[in-house]
């Protein structure tokens, strides 16, 4: 069995005595997209920065393509797309990509890549005058132009319009199909579900679950899920009253649109249960935009895995962790 492109073993990082990554072990294989998910403060950025060689670990080892993370042979075969761009604002896309190509020892013509990224028209425009989406695509170009064997993508489609997002996703898939290992960090669960072959979920510096999106949905969001989309987001109190009234556990209360914009309940969607929900809505004068029953999404699984309740004893997440 080939060794993984990225192998993180027992990584621990602390800032000023506060442990932010706690004995974390995970891997990413060639020819696969591996998503690393977790709420803010979960330790994703620190972990990835250690793997990119930008930060030192307090203990543990990280091997990148068979070399220590951050070493010269590792850097030569890695591509990185940063969320904050990493682009010199006064220079053009052509100049930036040519510089990165030279850093990788390649004097390649960057025009075909600019065309592939739909940037030909702005190739000679200073980065500072590009739109957010155009800058994102220049950053992606800088990450992929050396045809890396391991690619780190941090929020690759944040702020992109739907067409640009599809373009980025198609590029990521083609890189994966070409044999590259892609490590993706994102807050867009839809993106992770669409792209990832393997998902690692972190919470409080620890790995709480790993598997394919399908496996995680099966294990943590299951078929017995009911989702409400109220016209106006529900307050935390209202969510608690609803859960109490219908006798169901709340899996999560959040999604695009803010907290309470979507409420997910874990319960078999029997007619009586659905009737209880609608009765509560009548009583509280809550208007619904949608009421879905059936299988959950990766977002439901993620919310379940990273909820405060997931840290308590006897929770399925802890039982799984203990079993490992």
């Amino acid at each position: 069995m080939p060794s993984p492109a990225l192998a993180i073993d027992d990584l621990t990082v602390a800032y000023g005595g506060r442990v932010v990554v706690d004995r974390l072990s995970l891997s990413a294989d060639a020819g696969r997209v591996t998503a690393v998910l977790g709420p803010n403060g979960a330790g994703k950025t620190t972990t990835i920065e250690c793997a990119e060689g930008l930060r030192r670990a307090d203990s543990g080892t990280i091997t990148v393509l068979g070399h220590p993370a951050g070493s010269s042979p590792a850097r030569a075969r890695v591509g990185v797309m940063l969320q904050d761009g990493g682009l010199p604002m006064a220079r053009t896309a052509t100049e930036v990509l040519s510089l990165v190509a030279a850093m990788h020892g390649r004097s390649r013509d960057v025009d075909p890549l600019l065309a592939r990224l739909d940037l030909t028209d702005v190739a000679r425009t200073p980065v500072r005058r590009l739109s957010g989406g155009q800058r994102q695509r220049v950053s992606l170009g800088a990450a992929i132009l050396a045809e890396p064997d391991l690619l780190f993508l941090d929020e690759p489609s944040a702020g992109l319009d739907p067409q640009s997002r599809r373009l980025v996703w198609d590029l990521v898939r083609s890189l994966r199909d070409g044999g590259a290992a892609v490590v993706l960090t994102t807050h867009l669960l839809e993106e992770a579900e669409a792209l990832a072959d393997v998902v690692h979920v972190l919470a409080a510096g620890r790995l709480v679950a790993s598997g394919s999106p399908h496996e995680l949905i099966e294990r943590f969001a299951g078929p017995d899920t009911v989702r409400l989309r109220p016209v106006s987001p529900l307050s935390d109190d209202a969510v608690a009253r609803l859960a109490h009234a219908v006798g169901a556990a709340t899996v999560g209360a959040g999604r695009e649109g803010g907290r309470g914009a979507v409420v997910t309940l874990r319960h078999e969607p029997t007619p009586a249960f659905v009737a209880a929900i609608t009765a509560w809505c009548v009583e509280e004068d809550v208007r619904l935009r949608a009421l879905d029953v059936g299988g959950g999404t990766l977002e439901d699984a993620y919310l379940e895995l990273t909820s405060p309740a997931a840290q308590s004893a006897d929770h399925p997440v802890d039982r799984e962790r203990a079993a490992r």
Partner: protein
Amino acid sequence: MNRVLTYARFEAVSALRNGEQLLISIILPALVLIGLGRSGVVELDLLPGQDRLDVVVPGVLGLAVLSSAFTSQAIATAFDRRWGVLRQLATTPLGARGIVAGKVLSVFAVQVVQVVALGALGLALGWRPEVAGVPGALLVGVLGSVAFTSLGLLIAGTLRAEAVLAVANLLWVLLLVGGGLVLPAATFSSGLAVVTAWLPSGAMGDALRLSLTGGGFDVVAAVVLAAWSGVLTALAAKLFRPTS
């Protein structure tokens, strides 16, 4: 090495294309040279037979070193840091050391342009330097560049970009007026003159003036500059952070 040279060229072109950096690197020093060299607005303590340009041009060349090595470099690096440019480049085969080496080389490249432009302006105005003192002046210029580049990287790597902008410009003005660069330390009151002579700016200004007027090599000033270079380089190496 090719990577470092390519990055140095990229940085030097960025600096020479940037209007604000050109202003502080070449235009303002040129105005100081013309203003002090050819007007009596500031009284200078000249030796018999000495022209005002003998004092002013070496000082302005020192000011140019301060502008490119410290002020421009600190501001550019601080904004590179904020925009993630340093992080991005640190993940390429260039690496963190290559970034620093490239930045130092780019400073030297900009200084070649500065010396040519400001030296030519001085010669056109009638400055006649002592050619035998040029090697000593070059050594002093290199030591000053190392000290001020390290100081620039130190503040760029530890403060927020806006704070770097303010501090770098403020220090440029303070060292121009009272740092012993353009005006010799002896111009100031005795107390300030003692302090100024031990600053990297004062040591560089005095040593450049002595070398280029044929007065010999100022060993004490060179040692002071070398000590500042060592301390500031060590601090920058320890405290500089490519991420904000």
